[in-house]
Structure formats: structure tokens, C-alpha cells
């Protein structure tokens, strides 16, 4: 297992009052789960915490996570990831899905 944490600047997320968290993905081969939660600490940055069973790809992770923070407004959140060898595109898709779930309004 490899664990690392990193923060990136990001525009502040549009956080709906009705949601406290959002989860996307599952932990499984080539997949990961992403949990987004509010963080009171810094509204203009996102704090990632990653646990992966495929060590040795930190550069690639940080590039993908940094790009996501700069393309989407996720400031003021903590994003925790449990990974089992997902490719960067899957990481980006799950991040987007979690963000979509979070910001979509409950029917």
C-alpha cells in the first residue's frame, strides 16, 4: 500500500445544503472509490488523500489530481480515495461522478 496526501488550489465548490458527502466508484480491480466531504479549512483548495495498492505511480496521480482541481471547482473539500489500480482516466471519471452526485439536487 502507498499513501500520500496533497492539496491543490481550486475554485470553491458550489456545496448544496442537502448533501453532506458523495461517494462514487467501488474498490475493485482497476477501480477506486472516491469520497468527497466538506472541509472547513481552506475554501480555495482541495485536499486529496490517496491510498493505493498499486505503488509507484505518485507522479501520474498528482498530475491527474492537479488537473482535476484546476478544471473543476472543488475548493473547500477533502477527497479521500481508496484505489486498486485504476487508470488515470478512471480516476478522473470517478472524481467527476462524485462531484456530479454532490452538486446534483435531490429530487
Amino acid at each position: 500500500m502507498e499513501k500520500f496526501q496533497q492539496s491543490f488550489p481550486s475554485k470553491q465548490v458550489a456545496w448544496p445544503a442537502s448533501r453532506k458527502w458523495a461517494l462514487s466508484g467501488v474498490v475493485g480491480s482497476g477501480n477506486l472509490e472516491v469520497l468527497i466531504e466538506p472541509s472547513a479549512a481552506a475554501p480555495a483548495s482541495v485536499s486529496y488523500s490517496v491510498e493505493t495498492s498499486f505503488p509507484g505511480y505518485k507522479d501520474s496521480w498528482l498530475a491527474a489530481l492537479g488537473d482535476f482541481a484546476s478544471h473543476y471547482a472543488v475548493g473547500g473539500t477533502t477527497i479521500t480515495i481508496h484505489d486498486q489500480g485504476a487508470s488515470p482516466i478512471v480516476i478522473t471519471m470517478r472524481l467527476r461522478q462524485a462531484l456530479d452526485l454532490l452538486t446534483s439536487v435531490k429530487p
Partner: protein
Amino acid sequence: MSAQPRDLRRRNKAARISRASGLASGKLVPHERTADLLRAVIEPGDILCLEGDNQKQADFLAAQLASLDSSTMRDIHLVMSCITLPEHIELFKKGMIRKVDFCYAGPQGGAVADLLASGKFPIGAIHTYNEIYARYYIDLTPRVALIAAAKADRAGNLFLAANTEETPAIVEPTAFYDGIVIAQVNEIVDELPRIDIPTDQVDFVIGAPYPMHLTALFTRDPAAITDVQILMAMVAIQGIYKEYEVESLNHGVGFNTAAIELLLPTYGEELGLKGKICKYWMVNPLPTMIPAIESGWVETVFSVGGEVGMERYTAARPDIYFTGRDGSFHSNRPMGQLAGHYALDMFIGASLQVDIHGNSSTVSKKRITGFGGAPNMGCQPMGRRHPTKAWLKAGREANPGPGSIPGRKLVVQMVETFQAGRVPTFVESLDAQDPSIKAAMQGVAPVMIYGDDVTHLVTEEGIANLGACRTPEERTAAIRGVAGYTPVGLKRSSADTASLRERGIIKLPEDLGVSPARANRSLLAAQEVKDLVRWSGGLYDPPAQFVDW
């Protein structure tokens, strides 16, 4: 006038046949006497051809050959397209083989590498399919050919059923140059559904004690198609199929292209592309094409081989597939490869590795695999003269200078930036460049598709139009631009990528109007094998390993 006799081969053939005369009744030899027959007709020093490709093999004859003693069976020059069975490896282990010319060693790639290391694998050359078939007519004509057919009649005529494959390409040069053709058949019958090989070209027929094994090699379970593959398929449809109005094409056997096939009746329909693209195919009868065929997208399909389970479906769709007068499916590997070379707008396939020049390879260290038919289709046919829209458009992009070739075939490599287990697809240098592998290839790295032939690279990041690049440096920058978060991709310069994007050489999904949010399995026309059965009206009979109901 010389007294030198000019019919030595014919006389030699007659001698061999007479040695075997006691074994046969007419042309029929009981399977228990197979080893005796092989001993009687094969001589040391022979060029011996053993039929076998990735799907169909003369497996009984291979096993009988491997059971022989190397004192009687020696000094053989083996020629064959695919070394796929453990029995093939046994021939080398027993020291029967003086030299081997072949194409591909898929499942036995590791064993071949081991044999090579211990000096027991004397390679002549590794070929593509049509190359080796061509050499059967030039300098590698078999003295004895061991082939496989579905049925024979008592006169020795052969019926090949759906899997014609390479049988005629072996039989014709052998039979017409005084070689001996021995066929194993699943069944001997009084009357054949149709005659694919006439008895004139056949010397002995053996009713094998078990039917030849056929693998459903081209069946892709829609359940295993991922959202990422669907995203890439949407990108390819928008950026290549629609952009170039690709009418005639070949698809590889991977999940990427299976996703495209299953998006035609949904996403393709939505884009109004039906009747404009994907009309003429050179591809095996892929079950994942059933929804597109049933939705009226496809005019014709010609195939190099059959596919297990598609027999009733293909027979019921003679407007689409080539069928015999008996009504059943027909295929032909060399002619299919030829069609794939000259008559297609596009070849699209996948690969395990792509380097920064666009060369691709399926070779990994410690495995000697070789080539199949992909290079015959995934290359520029310099002898092509007939124009099509797609060919001319790709030609304009590639060759803007006066006097240049007017057209280009679209040669597309479609790969995810990472393989399973986070292995990067994009590499600075191919594993195929490994010295041990190059040594086996007489110093030439086994590149499956050359970067110079490739016009487009499709990844989940977008499309790189390599055909429109003007310099090798520009091509490398375009490749890095779509190589994502691989080490190759991380070395890109954002200024280069932006400039290539401005010129349309790199296109991202959003440039093509593709929304990643829509890339979802629910967009597939079939999400599981049973959906394919439903689409076929119950005519598709999936093999047991694909059934989950």
C-alpha cells in the same frame, strides 16, 4: 537438348504414394494408420506444411506427427502460419526440425522463447500471413501438407464449412507442384454440402477420432466493455468514421472496436450516419456486429474465417455474408487479407505498446509472438489506384506537395494510455527492441504496425492525426499529447499540445462534441451476450463459455 530429367518431383511423389498404397482404401486411411502413413510419405529434408492458424488447426495430424520418432522424422523444414499447440513445440523438443518459417506463436510465445534460448528453434524468418502464403508459391512450396477439413466424401473431395481460412492457400501450391496433401476430417460422408477442395488436389483423407478444436476467438462479451472504451469509441466515431466518411473497413478483435460496433445502432444512428459509413467490412463474423447488421447499417461482410456460434445467423443473412450454394458461410484468409490490403478505407486495431514514433508491437520480453494478418492490412498499399472519399481526404492531409501520392489508407491505432494493472501503453522504446528479441529476428525489431503507416492514434484523451504531422518531432509531440498520464505523456510541453490542437492535429473529446458524461454502458446496443441472441432473433448460438443464463 539435355538428358537431365525434368519430372523428378513427380516421380518422387509416385514413389511416396506407392509406399503408402497398402494403408489406404482409395484415398481413405483409417486414423489408426496415420503414423504409418506419415512415416511412408515424409522424407528427411522435406519442406513440411502443417495447417494451423489462431483459430483452426490440423490438431490430430500435429499430434500424430509429434508422436513419431526423430530417427524416422528428421531434418524437416517446417512451414506454417501459427505455432499454437503443445504438439508443435514437441516437434522442436524432439529435434525433428532443421528450420522453421512461420508467422505467429501466440499461446506458445513463452515456449518458443525458451526453445530459442536453448538453440532448438532454428528460425528461417517470421512473416505476415500473406507473405508466407506467397512464399508457398515461390521458394517454400511444401513437399507434404497436413491440412484440416470439416468433411470429406468417399472420393476425397473436401468441405471446409465456415472456416476455410488458409486451406486453399496451402493445398493449391502443394498439389500443383507434386506435393502430397493429407487431410484430417471430422466426418466422412456420402455426399458433401458443397465441394471446397476437389479430390484432384487431395492424396489422402483420414477421419480423425475427434473433431478439430475451434476456438471462439473473435467473440467479445459486451458485458466486459468499459465506460472508457465507450468514450474512445465515441471519439473515434466522431473524429474518424464521420470525419472521413469511412465506408469500407476492418476491425480488430479487441473490446475497443467491439464498443464501436455496438454504438453504431445507438450513437451512430443519433448522429445520422447510417447509410453513410461502415457499409463494407472485411472482418470475421463478429457477434457484436449483429445489432448493426439487424439495424440495416451493413451491406457486406467478407471474412478470413468463421466464428463458432455464428453458423445459423450467417446462413440466414446471405445478403450480408458470403455463402456457398449449400447456403452456409464461406471464408478465405489470403483473399480476405488481400481485400484488407487494397480495398479498404480504414484499418483500425489495438496494440499493447506504442512508442514515441507511433510504432506499435504486441511483443513483450520473454515471449516471441511474431505477426498475424494485422500488418497486411495496417499498412499503406502503395499499389492502390482506385480512389474513395476517405482515401483522398487522408491523402490530402498527408501529401500536400505536387506529385505526391493522392490517397492514403486510414490506419488507426486505438489504445488506452494504460493497460490493465497500470502498465503504460506508451513507451519511449518498444520491448520489441530488446536485443534478445531482435536477435531472433535477424536484427529487425518485430514492429506490428509502423508509425509511418499510422494515420491516427485514438486514446481516451483524444485523437492525434499523425498523418497530418510534418516532421518526426511533430509526430512525437502529437503522440505525447494524447498519451495522458503515462511517463511519455507527462513529458509533453503544453505549448506544443496547444499549438497542435489549434491546427486540428490533436482533438480532445470536447473538440469533437463528445461528452464524457454520456460514455456509459447504457449507450451500448447490447450489454450482454444474451442481448446479441435477442438481436439475432435466436439465430446466434453463443458457445457455453459465454452463456450466463
